[in-house]
């Protein structure tokens, strides 16, 4: 009884600890194991070396998915950061109705990616959407049919994803701008340093940690992107807009190829870990001043 009393905190944590151990770490181990077997429709547990990874890297569809991930991820991260930073700096200029604008910029983040994908699919529909609207204004030859062009469709995914997340980056940056020491800024203003120099030489450099956070979140969103592609392009035309996440899902649930699903999931995890582990390490490391 006394033991229990002394160990209440540990007892309280125990269920979560067990759950994380089994459902996160145990499951990762299971998937890793399966990725080294010949499992197809049903899991098989005899190890079979790296054949699944060889098959994966030889698959043209996986090649497309990885190329798409880097193209989509790169553009999505860079464009969201540029728009987010620009909007944050502009909103920081004592703008009237700042609250309303902020609310408008950020609301897409509250929506499901399925809703976002559905809305953009309709807007980008060449027969009825933007293309048709602009033609209706008299520009008869206006063409905007990326959604159905195999080599352009991935850019529609970028467009919708930027629409969804750039407001969030704006909010992060705005919070960062507001936390910069106002004394330093005032001193610089008194010295007659022009505003754009104050931003480029004083404010933005002090926001480095926020750039890093924004990058981590956006990279994470990009690698996990699944819903948006499903709702917007369904991975098509053909498999032109496949990403690792949609590839994994197709292998797991429609192709009945557990081995491929597991090995592709492991590659996704390694890509995320390559980005997140150094970040978490630097964030959680005990600081000298503590």
């Amino acid at each position, binding site marked *: 009884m006394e033991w229990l009393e002394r160990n209440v*905190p540990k007892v*309280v944590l125990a*269920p*979560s*600890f067990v759950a*994380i151990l089994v*459902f*996160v770490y*145990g*499951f*990762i181990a*299971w*998937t890793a194991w*399966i990725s080294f077997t010949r499992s197809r429709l049903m*899991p098989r547990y005899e190890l079979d070396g790296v054949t699944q990874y060889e098959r994966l890297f030889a698959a043209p569809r996986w090649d497309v998915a990885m190329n798409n991930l880097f193209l989509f991820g790169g553009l999505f991260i860079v464009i969201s950061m540029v*728009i987010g930073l620009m909007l944050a700096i*502009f909103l920081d200029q004592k*703008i009237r109705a700042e609250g309303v*604008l902020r*609310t*408008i*910029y*950020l609301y*897409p983040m*509250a*929506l*499901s*990616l*399925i*809703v*976002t994908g*559905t809305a953009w699919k*309709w807007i980008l529909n060449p027969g*009825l959407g933007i293309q*048709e*609207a602009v033609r209706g204004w008299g520009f008869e030859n206006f063409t905007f049919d990326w959604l159905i062009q195999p080599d352009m469709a991935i850019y529609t995914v970028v467009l919708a994803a930027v*629409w969804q997340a750039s*407001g969030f980056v704006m909010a992060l940056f705005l*919070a960062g701008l507001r936390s910069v020491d106002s004394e330093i800024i005032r001193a610089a203003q008194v010295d007659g340093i022009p505003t754009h120099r104050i931003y480029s030489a004083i404010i933005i450099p002090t926001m480095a940690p926020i750039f890093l*956070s*924004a990058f*981590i*979140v956006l990279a994470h969103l990009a690698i996990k992107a699944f*819903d948006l592609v*499903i*709702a917007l392009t*369904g991975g098509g035309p053909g498999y032109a807009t496949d990403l690792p*996440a949609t590839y*994994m*899902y197709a292998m797991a*649930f429609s192709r009945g190829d557990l081995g491929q*699903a597991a090995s592709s*999931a492991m590659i*996704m*995890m390694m890509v*995320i*870990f390559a980005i*997140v582990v150094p970040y*978490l390490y630097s*964030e959680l490391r005990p600081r000298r001043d503590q």
Partner: protein
Amino acid sequence: MTSKTLLRWGLYGILILFALFYLMPLFVMLTTSLKSLEEIRTGSLLALPRDITFAPWAEAWSTACAGTQCEGLRPFFWNSVLMAVPAVMISTVIGALNGYVFAQWKFRGANLLFAAILFGCFIPFQVVLLPMAQMLGLMGLAGTIPGLIFVHVIYGLGFTTLFFRNYYVTIPQELVRAAKVDGAGFFRIFWSIFLPISLPIITVSVIWQFTQIWNDFLFGVSFSGAGSQPVTVALNNIVNSTTGVKAYNVDMAAAIIAALPTLLVYVVAGKYFIRGLTAGSVKG
């Protein structure tokens, strides 16, 4: 002076242009959902509806076909409610207790354990999809709403623990020490000192979890059965169902209905939503 005024106008111009860009999809969804199919075919995407009709909304809610089932979004909307409410409550309660331990009752190895739990927030869920499908089968929860609740509680724990830990860590430990001297135990201190000051962080946790769980698609599409699909899965099925004439107005009405709960939360408690977003991304 004039160039400064010009700059000011340019600034407002760009800000308003972006506001229009962010609002456009919502505007298009709303106007399209109020048009007849005939008007959609003949009119422009950006035009206001000439004759407002609510028929697409009624159809989206109660008769639209998702796959072979033609009962509209209604049953799936309630599935989402039945899934999200318990999952949000359970993960918040556990997160509060965990955060309380990590912030105020540290023991040897606690930091390592916290890092291990936090790490769970970052894994791509694809890596647990296959074993979870098997596990739900073993537990007899495959294709059920309790199964989905279970999954959302497990993978929401990392975030709720993080929220509460970061909030409780700011409360001075002397308070706990003094209460202990007075003979109060673990739960007593939680109940009468920590819980009463927790309303702001409970709000953040509830809103964050609700948004995540309501908007989830991956778990929904992977683990739900015919009768337990959440609203996001049903929406996707309605939009991609190939039978009959494509009813864009119904699709748009369905999309708005699926988005309404989280939009409402954002409008009513946007401040807490943003706090959840930033707390979920910037660790302390």
